[in-house]
Every structure is written in C-alpha cells, then in structure tokens.
C-alpha cells in the first residue's frame, strides 16, 4: 500500500494556480524530500495532502484511504508538523507533550513513558517545567516536532522542521528521523536546506510554480542533471590570467581576477588536463586544486532555472 498517492492534484485561488496537476507517489518506509523555492507550492501541497484545504481537482489517497471522501480516516495514522509554529503558550513543555498525546487518545501510562523519551531525545529535559511562551523559538520548534512523536503513526509530514534550530539540534533531529524511518515510519519532508535533503532523502521531488519539475532519487538526479563537475584551481601569486584562460578551450571557465579559476565541465578529466597544460606552458604554478561533484543545491538551482526557461539545457 502506498503512503501517498496524489494524481493530477491542482489548487487554484482565483486566477492564481498554486498547485498544477501534481502527481506524487510515496512508498512506505521512505523519506520523500519535497523541495522548491519560496512560493513554489510546497506548503499548499502539504495542506492538500493533510486535508487542511480541498483541491480544485485531482485525487488524494493517504495510506490507502481516499482523503477527499474520508479526510478524518486518512488522518488517523498521520502526523503533521506544519511550517508555522503551533503551541499552547501557557502550558509547560512536558504538559504540552502530555496533552498532545491525550488529544491523540494515547493512554496515560504510554504518555508518561513517551514524554520522558522525547524530553531526552530532543534535549528538552532542562526546560521541561518552562512554559512554551518562555522558551526560545528553536526550543519551541523542538517541542513542536517532539510532540508529534507522542502518537502512533505510519506517515509523518514535516514541513521545514529544522527552521530555527541550531546545527547540533538540526543534526540530532535528522538522525532521530532516520532512526524512526528504520522502525518503519514514512516521512514526507520539505526543506530549504538542501544538505538536509541530501543527507536524509531516498527520493526527491522539486516543485516550481506549482508544477513538479523533477522527481527521482538523489543519485539519479545527479546523473540526469549533474553531469558537470566543478574544478577549482588555486594558482600562486596574483596576476591577470584572462588572456591565458582563452586557450583552455570550450569549457565553462570563470575567473575571480585573482588566484582562483573555476571550471564547470561534463568532461572534467580532459578539462583538468587542458588547464594544467595551459598553466604549465605559461609558467604558472598550481598551489591547490579540487574536483567537486555537483551538489544537490546546484542541481536544484539548475532544475528551477530550466523550468523557468533560463537554463542552458546542457546540464550543470
């Protein structure tokens, strides 16, 4: 049974099409990354999939249940951490966790045990007696995410869960999520931080202007869109190399005017040999060089640019 199955999903507000014929399939036990620039339609899609808003057209099945016909049934085994903060200001951290469990009909004994587990896992023990109103934005976000693990679920929507978290809290959360996925949980994950998607996701969809513009595993996306590698060459001494670099050939070369030359090439080995030849014949010594595979960030930028008709179609 698929965890999420959306077909031809659209949502319009007047003349504005926020989500346009989106097809999404999320398989069980996977972390599905959903990326896109601001205003691309990520949060609207999540609101549609969590039945918070109704689509203009299309179908949604969540854990095999038709979410349009039986939204409550579809939500029964689903957790949602929305992008916007949500908290009860006058409850203490531990009370907020406990009450949230109660709202999900979790029995008292289980709630007590889970509260302790989550306070430890999310490093909230020191602030357990503090009210939500009196803790920092990052701590509140941790409580918001931890709270969702108070109840049993098969699918969890996480809409930019690491916003406001410091690097160590962020990594701890990502590792916690990975652990839960090993236990059988499926995650639908949106983020702006592409390293997170790279670290976490089994499959990634990129949405822009309401349409899915790419969808695949991170490796396949790299193969499709990341043929080019980035080569950085640091040379000794500052001099004007503009004239010399004309001889490098048909490679995408950028030069900072100082000591760093950057090449983007699908044929990285030839490009590297060529630039070393050119530098050697001009008696320019190389201080350092590195070859960097294309990052997800570069793929993301390329896919988004291409979808807006600004790309060069040749890959990064």
């Amino acid at each position, binding site marked *: 049974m698929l965890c999420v199955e959306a077909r031809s999903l659209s949502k319009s507000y007047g003349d504005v099409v926020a989500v346009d014929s989106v097809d999404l399939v999320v398989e069980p036990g996977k972390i599905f990354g959903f990326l896109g620039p601001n205003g691309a339609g990520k949060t609207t899609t999540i609101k549609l999939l969590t039945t918070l808003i109704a689509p203009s057209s299309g179908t949604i099945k969540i854990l095999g249940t038709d979410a349009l016909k039986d939204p*409550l049934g579809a939500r029964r085994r689903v957790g949602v951490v929305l992008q916007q903060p949500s908290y009860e200001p006058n409850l203490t951290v531990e009370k907020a966790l406990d*009450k949230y469990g109660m709202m999900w009909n979790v029995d008292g004994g289980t709630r007590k045990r889970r509260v302790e587990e989550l306070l430890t896992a999310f490093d909230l023990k020191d602030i357990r007696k503090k009210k939500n109103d009196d803790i920092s934005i990052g701590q509140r976000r941790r409580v918001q995410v931890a709270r969702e693990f108070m109840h049993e679920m098969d699918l969890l929507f996480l809409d930019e869960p690491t916003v406001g978290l410091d690097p160590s809290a962020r990594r701890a959360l990502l590792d916690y999520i990975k652990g839960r996925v090993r236990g059988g949980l499926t995650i639908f994950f949106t983020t702006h931080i592409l390293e997170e998607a790279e670290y976490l996701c089994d499959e990634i969809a990129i949405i822009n202007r309401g349409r899915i513009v790419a969808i695949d595993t991170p490796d396949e996306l790299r193969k499709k869109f990341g043929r080019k590698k980035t080569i950085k060459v640091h040379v000794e001494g500052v001099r004007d190399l503009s004239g010399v670099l004309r001889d490098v050939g048909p490679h995408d070369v950028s030069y900072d005017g100082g000591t760093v030359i950057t090449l983007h090439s699908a044929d990285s080995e030839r490009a590297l040999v060529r630039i070393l030849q050119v530098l050697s014949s001009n008696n320019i010594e190389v201080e350092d060089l590195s070859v960097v595979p294309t990052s997800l960030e570069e793929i993301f930028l390329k896919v988004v640019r291409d979808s807006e008709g600004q790309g060069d179609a040749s890959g990064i």
Partner: protein
Amino acid sequence: MHPVFRLVNRNLTISLNMGFVIWQVIFPVIYIFVAGFAYTALIHNVPFGTRNLDYPAFIASGMIGFNIMNSTLISGIIIWNDRRHGMFEQILVGPFTRAQYILSNVYTIGIIGLFSAGLITAIGYPLFFKSVEFNVLTVPLVVFAAITGAILFGSIASIISTRLKSSEGFNVVINTVFLFFAFVSTAFYPAQGAPPVLATAFYFNPLTYLVDVVRAGIFGNFTATVGYEMLVLLAGALVLFGIATKLLSRLEI
C-alpha cells in the same frame, strides 16, 4: 475517550489557571461586597415581583449572570489563541473535525458557565439566603440560564474572534461589547426607575434576559414574563451559535 471530550479536556487545561479563577472570584466579590453595601445607602430596596430585595441580594444575584457572561469570554480567547498560535490548523490536521472543534467549545463554555454560576451562588449566598427559594422548579431555571447564557455569550466572543486578527482589535472590541452588556442591563440596577430610553435599551441586551432568569430561579419568581425571557435567551443562543458555527466552518486556513 470521544474526540470532543478530549478537546474539552484540552480547552479546560489551557483556560483554567489560578489567574482565571482569582479573576473569576475577586471581580464579583468586589462588586457584591463593596458596591453592594456602598450603594445600600442610596438604594434601600429593589422591588422584585411581589417582594422587595435588599440591594446586596439584588446585585449578588445579578453578578451570577454577569460572571457567566465574563467567563465565556474564554471561548473567544481559546479560538483567537488557537488561530494566533497555530493550534487551530494543528488540531484540524489531527484526529478531529471542525464540527468537533466547535462542539468542544460549546461544552467548554457550558462547563465554565456552570462553574461560574455555582461559584458566585456560593459567594453571594450569605447575602441572598434570606430571600432564596430554591426548589425543583427554580434550580433548573438557574442551570438553564447558565447553559444558554454561556452558549449565547460564548458565541458572541467566538464570532468576534473569527473576525479580528490583531490582539489589540480583539481586546478593544470584546471589552467594549461586554462593557455595554454589563452596564446597560439589569445586572446592577433594576429597569424600573431608569430613564425610559435606557430601560428600553436594557431589553436589547441578552444579559438582561440572562440575569432576569437567574433571579427568577434564585428567588422563586417564575412568571409569564420570565417564560418569555427564557425563549428569547434560547432563540438568541441558537441563532448566535449558528452564526458562530458558520463562521468557524468557513474560517480560512
């Protein structure tokens, strides 16, 4: 536990704190014991049905209705806070429907209304015990008034909370509306003897009907007029609850 009761449990937990209880007690105590006795020099007796009530007994019974109204502000505050702090959306992506959310607010304000009525009855009892005529017919009147009044004023607070986004706007509007309700009513003084325009205005105010029914319950003075006032109270509660429900159902996310 049924989802509605789980939400009621949550509503009561976030609403009932020591500050709320103190506010619920101190405010009416000052009115009953300070204003009540201070004004006795000016208002010796208040004609009520076939008898005269002393002013402290009159105001103490009026404060029951007043406190029910005040306590149901909670309903508006819950909705407004849920919207402001993201809990409205969070609840609706959980195992709850909008209808259950709305119903939980009704139960919450009903419980708080009854709690409030009981509290002020206990506080005011020493003042009006001489005139009290509780029996199997009059006690249900007080309970009816507490529940319908709570739903009516809770609905008004809910309507205001769905229309206003800023905290300043919410506080200004709700305080102005409830201030009008409090002082242009029979809670603090009788309609008889008031200037005709003001006396008429009293009866455009649901608090007057609530207070009159409560007094009829406490002092055993059920008349045809009280029956009519109960109908007005019930109709008002149903209409306003309908409007509040519609607005909450359409609330955009």
